[in-house]
């Protein structure tokens, strides 16, 4: 039973309540989940919400950040508790509060608590431009329930702006306080200021003193903070513009202007501003404040009797102004207009290092470790500098200099590094080094000949060779798949690792198989190792049999798998060795001994943790080339990228520690766009990702893309399956007529249930995970679907299975999963459909195959999963078509789950082969199966060895 949790702001923190749920229940549910919050973190209160009296829980201030942080970005917490939109809002507000604290924008203060009639020491936020803008957006989007508590009897609720202010105050204080260590308890004999300091760090913020002392302290605090807090709420602010001279010895002008906050391009000079009274106080106060930060500004105020225009500086003064004073002024809210070359925007004025790579002498085609001759040049803009000029620059006292008509800020470290390279730099680079430098936007690489071509191709500025499909491939490669296959070949031939990250359903398997086939045809020397999740092994085998039947494949799996010396012999005879991640780690020594043509990782997110055993083993393999396949948007998961790249192209992103320092922290914690851009440049050439929605792909995809997903049975399922077969063996031979029909249908139904899940078959409430190949595969695929914010319908013919799936998926993904079956009343059904169709509705919908009637419109789904099959194509298609209809704007991917080596696979094959006349013969039910002979039936339902995963 789902319950929705709400939270509104109260004096001490947040008040939590859920409609139709009593406080003791709520307290128990939340207490389980949040057992580590301070005891007494929940107490009960009666209160009024929107006119009706309810019972609610108080969540006190210190517990607010951990609670909200646990709720952030989730739809549910604990069992059956859905997070209301008001709580999601508070999570966003907490984020702003945390950013305020991270930027250290808070000051200690003291305030009178009217409710408790005491004074409290507290930490108060001080908002700057950035925070004010974010707060404005938050204020405008506050859900009404957030303010529900602030109304008393007959009073209207407090406005959103004030409510947000109060929340930020509570949250910032709680965050800062939680970081302070509790000092010795204050006693009344200590000086007041000491007691204030202690109350700032104590979980109990009360400050005790005489009323006169407290009033005095409050006045002192106000006077002390005034200078900082006096950020004007006016329309304009003071702005300084730095104007550079045209010659070296002429003075720099720093000009005072008044700048509009809402449109920073609106500038007024001070003289005009002075004439308009409205701006004088702003101007004066700002100038006065700026004067405290910069002695030059102070001096400028002395020299005029009327409003002053600005001041002059020599080059040395300009340098210290730009490098030190400017930041201080900016911090105190004064605008600055600085020359573009100082801000590094104009690359013409930057010192660039150029590597001129000579035509390579390597005859037989470039590889990643080929060596190249390189010439170093240092340049500013278009003009290169000699070593002597560089030395002169290095000797400058002030790193601002005019070169060839441009002002340049010469970074001393860059200069020294540049000089070093010029004098003693390496004369030889490997192709890998050259690529790494090329991708680093700070170094300019010039290359001719095949090196140049290679570099251009890597950066996408030149196309690589597009190949014809390999001979021996059955089935057609769509145009984009041909491009993907050619891309894989281009990179692997040169020795680079490649990550194919196409959306699910675009055919990564066939592209990879094409490459493997081509290599094998060229030179049948060493095998390729393919590592994938256990649940997918069957699928790879089936796909290879279908598309590349000429490739000898062996699966290294199961208790009877080959080991030791026999392993080496065995793998050499095959083109492709398929194994699982689990076995890769267990048999690591075996795999490390062989030399592999290439290593392909399917669902490469399995090595996202670089310290995991499988990640380590995979990096230690002796591989000619390396490929990773994944459906997840790799570049968006910065944390996982290093492990992937380190496997594909070792060293390309530096050591893990360097990566954390240069990329992970700047991008994730500080959202630095430059670091994000650099990372994109450096990893981009090795990742190819196409989306179903790409305009170049859409034309190549059928609107309804149907795929079979071959799954395996667990050992438990296999023995249950065999047991059912045994059970019905006798009855099958003995009965006839109507009884026979009934028996067959019963047997088929039981076998289907076994293939689904042992818990469905046994109708017990036993634990679910790890017991069904189909369920495992479904969860993996849904994870990908959810990762890209898509939606899925999951069909099953069994209502019990539907219930199992709905509950399991809801727990697994911590979100609401809709479930529609025959017994659901129409009103509720319509409500579910409406919710699913909405933009922010639930993403997963489980349906029993015959639920509802026609007239269900579920077009916001773009994936349809048939967990089990109803062997009547018409019925199945009708279900699928609920998602695929006129009005559907996306491609629909249909995934039909089939357990390999069981009746599911064989009956499916039978239907396929009869497809031309299938509709006529089959009719509307599954009764046609009962028309088959016993012998044929036995063939269909037999269980082959390959059905089992282990």
């Amino acid at each position, binding site marked *: 039973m789902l319950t929705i949790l709400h939270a509104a702001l109260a004096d001490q923190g947040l008040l939590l309540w859920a409609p139709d749920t009593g406080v003791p229940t709520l307290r128990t549910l939340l207490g389980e989940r949040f057992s580590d919050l301070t005891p007494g973190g929940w107490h009960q209160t009666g209160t009024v919400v929107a006119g009706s009296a309810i019972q609610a829980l108080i969540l006190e201030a210190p517990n607010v950040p951990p609670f909200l942080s646990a709720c*952030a*970005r989730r739809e549910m917490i604990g069992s059956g508790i859905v997070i209301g939109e008001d709580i999601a809002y508070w999570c966003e507000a907490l*984020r702003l509060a*945390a*950013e305020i604290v*991270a*930027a*250290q924008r808070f*000051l200690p203060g003291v305030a009178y608590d009217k409710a408790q009639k005491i004074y409290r020491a507290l930490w108060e*936020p*001080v*908002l700057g431009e*950035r925070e*004010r803008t974010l*707060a*404005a*957006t938050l*204020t405008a989007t506050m859900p009404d329930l957030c303010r529900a508590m602030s109304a008393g009897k007959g009073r209207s609720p407090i406005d959103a702006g004030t409510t947000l*202010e109060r929340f*930020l105050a509570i949250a910032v204080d709680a*965050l800062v306080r*939680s*970081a302070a260590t509790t000092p010795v308890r204050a006693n009344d*004999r*200590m*000086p*007041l*200021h000491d007691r204030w*300091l202690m109350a700032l760090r104590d979980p109990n913020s009360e400050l005790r003193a005489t009323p*006169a002392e407290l009033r005095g302290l409050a006045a*002192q605090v106000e*006077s*002390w*903070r005034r*200078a*900082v*807090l*006096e950020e004007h*709420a006016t329309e304009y602010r003071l702005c300084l513009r730095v104007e550079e001279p045209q010659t070296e010895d002429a003075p720099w002008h720093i000009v005072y202007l008044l700048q509009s906050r809402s449109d920073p391009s609106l500038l007024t000079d001070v003289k005009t501003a*002075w004439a308009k009274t*409205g701006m*004088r*106080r*702003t101007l*004066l106060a700002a*100038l*006065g404040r700026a*004067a*405290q930060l910069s002695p030059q500004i*102070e001096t400028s*105020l002395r020299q005029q*009797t009327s*409003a002053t225009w600005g001041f002059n500086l020599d080059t040395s003064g300009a340098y210290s102004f730009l490098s030190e004073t400017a930041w201080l002024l900016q*911090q105190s809210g004064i605008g600055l207009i600085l020359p573009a070359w100082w801000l590094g925007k104009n690359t013409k004025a930057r010192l660039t290092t150029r590597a001129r790579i000579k035509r390579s002498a390597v005859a037989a085609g470039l590889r990643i470790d080929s060596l190249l001759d390189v010439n170093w040049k240092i340049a500013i803009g278009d003009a290169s500098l000699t070593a002597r000029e560089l030395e002169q620059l290095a000797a400058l006292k002030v790193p601002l200099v005019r070169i060839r008509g441009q002002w340049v800020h010469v970074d001393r470290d860059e200069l020294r590094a540049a000089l070093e390279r010029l004098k003693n730099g390496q004369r030889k680079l490997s192709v890998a080094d050259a690529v790494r430098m090329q991708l680093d936007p700070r170094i300019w690489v010039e290359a001719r000949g095949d090196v140049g071509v290679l570099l251009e191709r890597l950066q996408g500025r030149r196309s690589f060779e597009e190949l014809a499909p390999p001979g021996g491939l059955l089935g057609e490669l769509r145009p984009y798949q041909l491009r993907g296959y050619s891309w894989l070949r281009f990179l692997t031939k040169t020795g680079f690792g490649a990550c194919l990250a196409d959306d699910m359903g675009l055919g990564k398997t066939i592209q990879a198989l094409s490459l493997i086939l081509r290599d094998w045809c060229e030179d049948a020397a060493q095998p390729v190792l393919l590592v994938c999740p256990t649940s997918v092994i069957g699928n790879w085998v089936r796909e290879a049999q279908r598309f590349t039947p000429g490739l000898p494949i062996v699966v290294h799996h199961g208790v009877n798998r080959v080991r030791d010396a026999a392993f080496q012999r065995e793998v050499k005879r095959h083109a492709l060795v398929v194994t699982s991640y689990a076995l890769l780690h267990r048999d690591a020594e075996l795999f490390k001994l062989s030399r592999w043509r290439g290593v392909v990782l399917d669902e490469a997110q399995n090595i996202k943790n670089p310290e995991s055993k499988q990640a380590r083993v995979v990096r230690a393999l002796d591989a000619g080339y390396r490929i990773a396949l994944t459906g997840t948007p790799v570049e*968006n998961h910065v944390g996982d990228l290093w492990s992937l790249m380190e496997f594909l192209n070792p060293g390309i992103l530096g050591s893990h520690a360097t990566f954390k320092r240069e990329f992970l*922290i700047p991008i*994730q*914690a*500080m*959202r630095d766009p430059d670091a994000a851009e650099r990372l994109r440049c450096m990893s981009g050439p090795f990742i190819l990702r196409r989306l179903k929605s790409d305009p170049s792909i859409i034309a190549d995809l059928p609107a309804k893309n149907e795929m079979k997903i071959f799954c395996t049975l667990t050992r438990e399922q296999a023995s249950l399956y065999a047991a059912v077969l045994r059970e019905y063996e006798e009855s099958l031979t003995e009965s006839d007529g109507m009884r026979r029909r009934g028996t067959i249908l019963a047997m088929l139904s039981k076998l289907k249930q076994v293939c689904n899940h042992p818990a469905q078959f046994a109708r017990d409430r036993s634990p679910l995970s790890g017991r069904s190949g189909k369920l495992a595969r479904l969860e993996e695929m849904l994870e990908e679907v959810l990762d890209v914010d898509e939606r899925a319908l999951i069909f099953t013919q069994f209502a019990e299975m539907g219930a199992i799936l709905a509950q399991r998926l809801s727990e697994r993904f911590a979100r609401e999963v809709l479930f529609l079956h025959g017994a659901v009343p129409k009103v509720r059904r319509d409500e579910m459909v409406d919710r699913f169709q909405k933009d922010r509705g639930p993403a997963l919908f489980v349906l029993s195959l015959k639920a509802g009637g026609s007239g269900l419109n579920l077009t916001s789904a773009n994936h349809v999963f048939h967990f089990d099959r109803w062997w009547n194509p018409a019925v199945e298609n009708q279900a699928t078509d609920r998602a695929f209809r006129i009005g559907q704007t996306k491609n629909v991917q249909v995934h039909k789950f089939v357990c390999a080596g069981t009746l599911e696979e064989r009956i499916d094959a039978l239907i396929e082969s009869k497809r031309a006349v299938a509709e006529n013969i089959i009719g509307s039910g599954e009764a046609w199966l009962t028309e088959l002979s016993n012998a044929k039936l036995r063939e269909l339902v037999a269980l082959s060895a390959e059905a089992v995963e282990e």
Partner: protein
Amino acid sequence: MANPPPSKPRRVRGGIKAQSKRGAFAERWWAKRWIAVLEGFGLGARLARGRSYARQGQVTQISIEPDGVRAEVQGSRRAPYSVTIQVKPLSVSQWRLITDAIMRTPRFAAMLLNGQMPEDIEDAFREAQCELFPQSITDVRTDCSCPDWSNPCKHVAAVYYLIGEEFDRDPFLLFALRGRTRRDILATLTLDDEPSPEIAPTRAHPAPTVPAPRPPVEHPQVNAWLLRQAGRFPFWHGSISLEDALSVVYARAAEHALTLLAETWPDD
């Protein structure tokens, strides 16, 4: 008459400690002027004692009231002594002349608004036929409840020095002692015809119409920079300085917040 033997005062925990450790009290010229008056009294050893009392933190309380300064100083007796200091106020007409003069020179207002006393502001006062600073004993009335018959005594001297230091931070204090608070003065300047910007640090702007991408969090270049920007606390009497006490809190709070952000909202 002979000076009484120097008595040892009781130790004070905390207390308002003068910032200057050695050499001259107060840095700014106007604070020095203030102190010059005291030093012109010719108090001799009492002055030195007053200075060391101020440095040791024997003054436990100072409050600025409408009718002057009240303070408590810990001496050798159990109960601290009460000290009062009053400066002769200026007349209404004198103040009018002074505010007119300030109005004529915008630079004055700019500096005053930001805690600076313009050097030539004394000219404005002289035009009004008065002096900004007390010139002699007759301009200042002091009192202390200690048994020492000399007035000013060392207790008064201690308070006097500390007030001088506070002038460094807030020049308006001098005007307040002479009869006009900061608010009064700013109110009479034409600058305050507009409503003064409210010191409301969390008042948000009206919502922007087009949502912009979330700007990056700034990483402070200097720890507890806002605390430093606020500067010296008026008459601080804690046992360690505000900055020393709270710098660690700032550093740790920022660190925890960054971790919270990275863990709760990754990859955004």
